[in-house]
């Protein structure tokens, strides 16, 4: 069978799947596994790995048809790290065995993934990380501390970067692994945020064992493998179509409409300005998707992440200020582990505080500006002091 290239061919395959597995009567996981076997999980993936080797753009057709038929999905928000970061990395760098073992339950959601990259001492400077992995027979033994790990407490597997050679410059001495989160050497502790809740975790690795068969890529090649992961993370941002007033601007505009007694001319102009920028950001997203569809992806995603963070912070800050007497009050500070995170959910105070993270998570706005300046505008890099020094000799 040659790969389908038209929407019509894909629609036929979906119809066939639906004919064989009626979503109304098929158990959810069974349906998802059948979908996987039909190559309709991610049609751009190879045959045998949930795909058809088809153009990625056809995936939209699959999703639309299945949604129309009321088929269950794999709850992509719940398994975002697996789908968005682990899967493309495994596909690019994994062995055949690794692909066969990991991708299917990753996609069906039977196994949740998390990401063990950041450390307390290695945030923006990921390559400075100090979690050590030392070889012991067929295994690696891993010791260190990771942080900002979402879904660590529900995850079965983690993608992990660790230092395997401290005697070479920092970018050269890292290796990339798949870590079993059920290993007794792995301890997960919730990390409470300024919102009171704990979306993220700290993960303490104390002699955790990883078989060498779970290494992704070559020993010492961890930086390059991690770049693939992070590039896919960036692509994932801003990918969805957003209706006008989608997101924070809609929430805050509704607050405005609900409270005429709080209106002032100054506040109206500020809100309108933010509305304008939000609408322009929406246009930028549309334009980016159209470029992608036309086969000429641009670097505009970086601009969108910067603008998104700035606007969500400005809008949510505006809302608290506008609410004044009510802005002084808060819903709750209770510590809990949320299932899913909705930046625009809960109350104004939560939105304001949570939005502060938007310019830090997934690459700080400062690092993003460096990247834009150097990679997009071609401005020269600053003098580097950490390029040629063995990792162990770096000041920290």
């Amino acid at each position: 069978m040659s790969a389908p290239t038209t929407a019509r061919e894909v629609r036929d395959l979906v119809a066939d799947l639906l004919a064989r597995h009626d979503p109304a009567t098929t158990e959810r996981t069974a349906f998802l596994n059948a979908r996987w076997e039909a190559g309709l999980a991610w049609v751009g993936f190879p045959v045998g790995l949930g795909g058809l080797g088809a153009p990625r753009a056809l995936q939209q057709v699959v999703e639309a048809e299945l949604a129309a038929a009321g088929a269950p999905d794999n709850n992509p928000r719940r398994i975002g790290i697996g789908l968005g970061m682990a899967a493309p990395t495994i596909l690019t760098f994994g062995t055949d065995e690794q692909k066969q073992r990991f991708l299917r339950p990753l996609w069906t959601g039977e196994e949740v993934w998390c990401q063990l990259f950041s450390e307390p001492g290695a945030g923006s400077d990921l390559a400075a990380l100090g979690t050590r992995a030392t070889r012991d027979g067929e295994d690696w033994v891993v010791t260190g501390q990771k942080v900002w790990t979402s879904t660590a407490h529900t995850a079965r597997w983690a993608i992990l970067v660790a230092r395997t050679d401290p005697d070479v410059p920092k970018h050269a001495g890292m290796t990339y692994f798949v870590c079993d989160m059920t290993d007794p050497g792995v301890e997960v502790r919730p990390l409470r945020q300024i919102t009171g809740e704990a979306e993220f975790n700290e993960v303490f690795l104390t002699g955790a064992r990883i078989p060498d068969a779970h290494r992704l890529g070559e020993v010492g090649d961890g930086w390059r493998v991690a770049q693939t992961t992070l590039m896919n993370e960036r692509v994932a941002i801003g990918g969805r179509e957003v209706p006008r007033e989608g997101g924070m601007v809609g929430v805050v505009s509704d607050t405005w409409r609900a409270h005429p007694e709080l209106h002032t001319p100054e506040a109206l102009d500020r809100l309108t300005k933010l509305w304008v920028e939000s609408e322009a950001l929406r246009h930028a997203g549309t334009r980016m998707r159209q470029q992608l569809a036309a086969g000429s992806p641009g670097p505009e995603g970086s601009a969108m992440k910067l603008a998104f963070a700035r606007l969500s912070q400005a809008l949510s800050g505006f809302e608290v200020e506008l609410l004044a007497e009510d802005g002084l009050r808060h819903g709750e500070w209770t510590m809990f582990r949320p299932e899913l995170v909705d930046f625009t959910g809960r109350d104004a105070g939560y939105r304001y505080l949570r939005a502060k993270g938007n310019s830090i998570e997934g690459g700080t706005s400062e690092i993003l500006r460096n990247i834009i300046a150097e990679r997009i505008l071609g401005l020269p890099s600053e003098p580097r002091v950490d390029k040629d020094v063995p990792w162990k000799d770096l000041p920290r």
Partner: protein
Amino acid sequence: MSPAPDRPEQDLLYSDVEEELRASVRALLAARADSARVLGRVEDEQPLDLDLWRALAVDLGATSLPIPEALGGQGAGLRETAVVAEELGRSVAPVPFLGSAVLATGALLHLLGQGAERGGPDAQAEAALTRLAEGAATAALVIPLSTYPGGPLPAVSADGDALTGTVRSVADAAVADLLVVLAGDVLFLVEAAAARVTPVVSLDLTRPVADVVLDATPGVRLSGSGEAAVRAAVLVGAGILASEQVGIAEWCLSTTVAYLKERYQFGRPVGSFQSLKHRLADLWQELVLARAAARAAADALATGAEDLEITVLVAQSLCAAVALHAAEEAVQLHGGIGMTWEHPVHLYLKRAKADEIALGTPGRHRAALAPLVGLTA
């Protein structure tokens, strides 16, 4: 009131045809309006370059794009006009494009559209458009360039077909053959030679304004609502101006980036200093949003989208600010050299500042936008 409903996604890319048009215009401007040449003539008696204007109008047909083919135009629409405006913004070429090919043409085209609804177009308006399409005449819409959506329009009075009144700060009027004048709700065509048009020392050296005095000056009365036509032209102008502003911002950003790569201080290229890099990255981010907004406005103008007004007001209020920010950063980051008359960056600063005012300041556009999207005082 809730915001306007969503509608099918707009096309925000540049088509191949548009890119070809851009290439032709850019080549012409590179050959005939490089910055030394533009700077060299700003203190001439006639700062506008009418030879270049003819080349643009006649050789490239860049001014007849939105005029129907039946009238000698290209029937191409405003997306293409926006691309020309973007290139003209990049070069601050001193040609009466905004006044003639956008504002005056826009008003006449709107009258034509009104005529179609009434069962017959105005023959005089058609004749004027034909002259414009051929490049045989240049026109100006006699309103202050600072006129904003929903704002007051000039008070010219008509006694029969004799027009009397003064309108200040009119764009591109000094070189116009034809003046398009609103009196009451009627649009008149006036031969410029019959009016008193006085050039004014202008903040914008490459788009000087002029004062128009009519003193029982004869005009040709056009049928249809003149006020509707002028208000439509102001909206068209604001939308197209957004693309000009994208062009200004792009020139300022890329010129500054190039300068900072080659300028050394402290033994390093100045462009390697992080605080400057971050400011330029922010500017680039603004430009990404501005371009998307300007394209949306051009597309909405071309398709007559239901939410045309919202889309134009968003684009103009954003792009005006981005162009000015880019120009101000360009001056600052060029250091001393950016403060000199001999470096062209001041032409862009003056254009960006005048464009901030042109067809309404960002604040005026936001004020007009807010009630349209349900944000009421």
